[in-house]
């Protein structure tokens, strides 16, 4: 990837050096994906989009398991984020999820299914309406989206559907880490004979009703999704964390996570 980026940079420099050439595209994709223009059209329309190094996506360069590709979104010092979109250019269902950070940090980690090698990107919308985009390439042998979930083959998930396991950890900075796993097959609808079935809303709030984060998962989020989020100091106090959500069939998700 570094080579491609270097080539892209070299090409940009060359354009600068030749004043008769057209002006360089300010939004040329650092990941050099042929799908970027489609992505831009699909998600951002006329909004302003910038590639921003503060938007970091951590994922393995080569995914060992296409059904569980770990991804962590870190927005670093970017302030005033209202919404974050995560998508993979070459997935048959491009959008993996979106989230709206409330009083939690704007970072989120989870795992997704990849059908083939693809850029995995995060786009963060700040209050001024501008989208800040970062990402990384993940290589995989794929097949992650058209395989049936293991859950559909076992009777267990039906009894445990939407069951929540969660735990809080105190962080060195005085904040709290929350890890949260929900039993759900997260079927994409792309495996023959298995209809789409996934969690679509997850609200994570303080006991007194302040929003920590709203997560809107799409089909590519891995089976039995596990989310990792961080909450800054002095937000939670001694209160519980409330989780409320549902899947696309209307089955509710409810849990309370005591300190």
């Amino acid at each position: 990837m570094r080579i491609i980026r270097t080539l892209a940079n070299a090409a940009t420099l060359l354009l600068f050096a030749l004043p008769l050439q057209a002006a360089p595209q300010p939004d040329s994709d650092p990941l050099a994906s042929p799908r970027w223009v489609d992505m831009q059209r699909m998600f951002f329309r006329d909004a302003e989009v910038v590639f921003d190094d503060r938007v970091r996506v951590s994922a393995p360069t080569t995914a060992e398991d296409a059904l569980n590709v770990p991804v962590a979104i870190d927005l670093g010092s970017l302030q005033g984020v209202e919404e974050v979109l995560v998508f993979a250019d070459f997935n048959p269902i491009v959008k993996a999820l979106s989230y709206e950070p409330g009083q939690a940090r704007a970072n989120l980690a989870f795992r997704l299914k990849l059908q083939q090698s693809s850029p995995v990107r995060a786009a963060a919308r700040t209050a001024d309406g501008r989208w800040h985009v970062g990402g990384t390439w993940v290589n995989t042998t794929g097949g992650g989206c058209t395989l049936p979930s293991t859950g559909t083959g076992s009777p267990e998930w039906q009894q445990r559907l939407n069951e929540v396991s969660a735990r809080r950890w105190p962080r060195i900075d005085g904040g709290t880490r929350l890890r949260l796993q929900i039993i759900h097959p997260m079927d994409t609808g792309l495996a023959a004979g298995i209809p789409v079935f996934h969690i679509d809303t997850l609200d994570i709030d303080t006991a007194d009703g302040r929003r920590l984060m709203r997560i809107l998962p799409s089909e590519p989020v891995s089976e039995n999704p596990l989310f990792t989020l961080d909450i800054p100091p002095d937000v939670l106090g001694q209160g519980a964390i409330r989780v409320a959500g549902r899947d696309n069939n209307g089955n509710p998700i409810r849990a309370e996570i005591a300190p």
Partner: protein
Amino acid sequence: MKGLSHILRRLACMLLLTLSTAALGQTRDFDYRLSPQQIADGVYVLIGKTEDFSLDNGGDIVNTGFIIGREGVIVIDTGSSKRYGEQMRAAIARLTPLPIVLVINTHHHPDHFLGNQAFAVDTLAALADTRRAIEAEGAGFLDNMYRLNGDWMRDTEVAIPRRTLTAGPLEAGGRKLELVALGGHTVADLAVLDTTTGTLFAADLVFNKRAPTTPHAEIKRWLQSLDQLQALRFSRLVPGHGEVTTGSDAIEQTRQYLQWLDQTLRDGAEQGLDMTEMLALTVPDKFAGLAEVRTEFRRSVTHLYPAAEQAALQRGR
């Protein structure tokens, strides 16, 4: 449909490979250049490279072996491809006119059984769980092996062993063997002790100067298996990957790495680390001498961390 898509994918793979090979002006003779080393009376090994599968090595990354008895030959694992199996059989035929009477697959990983086609079907044998696992997962492995090793795999198909082996003494080809049925690297791992020479074929329960692989591992059971191997009396040990050794150094090395891996995964989960944070951890210097250790550690996190996470989340209740 599934069969067809396998074939199409394989054809596409081969076409791509042919094109790229042609473009580079390279030719391959697909000769593994197998040269059996005699390590004891009648006991031979073929030592593979301590690398990952590649288009260059064609899957010659595994140790296989054979024992020439008074009346026949016993083969232990058949390599990664039909070509490997055929070339192994030819190498055996150069050393002895005796028939091959027993072909053992120590476990169900593809580098240990995809050479089976080169041998008579009724000589192929494995533990019952290994036979079942080859049947269940063989096709998936095969696709992946075509992708990784390219045309070295040509015409390779899964040949499921027909004979079921059980633990205990077994006489074959006029040679006395002790079969030790263990597990932990996979659902079933068979160690084979040649009692005449004290040679222990430890299968992939033991790696020598090569990081252990864990796609089907259950570390606790694997560690118990290592204890059982160490309690056996053997004069030399053939690991699944890496050089032959006379002591228990390779067993100890494998044990220390697995213990560190297990502890690291549990500690990480207990501290609430995300998988991406686990993948970023560095492997301690003491394991730097194990080939492929950084890659294998990251793979192991993918395979094994989810179970550690679930256990840690349950403890939080």
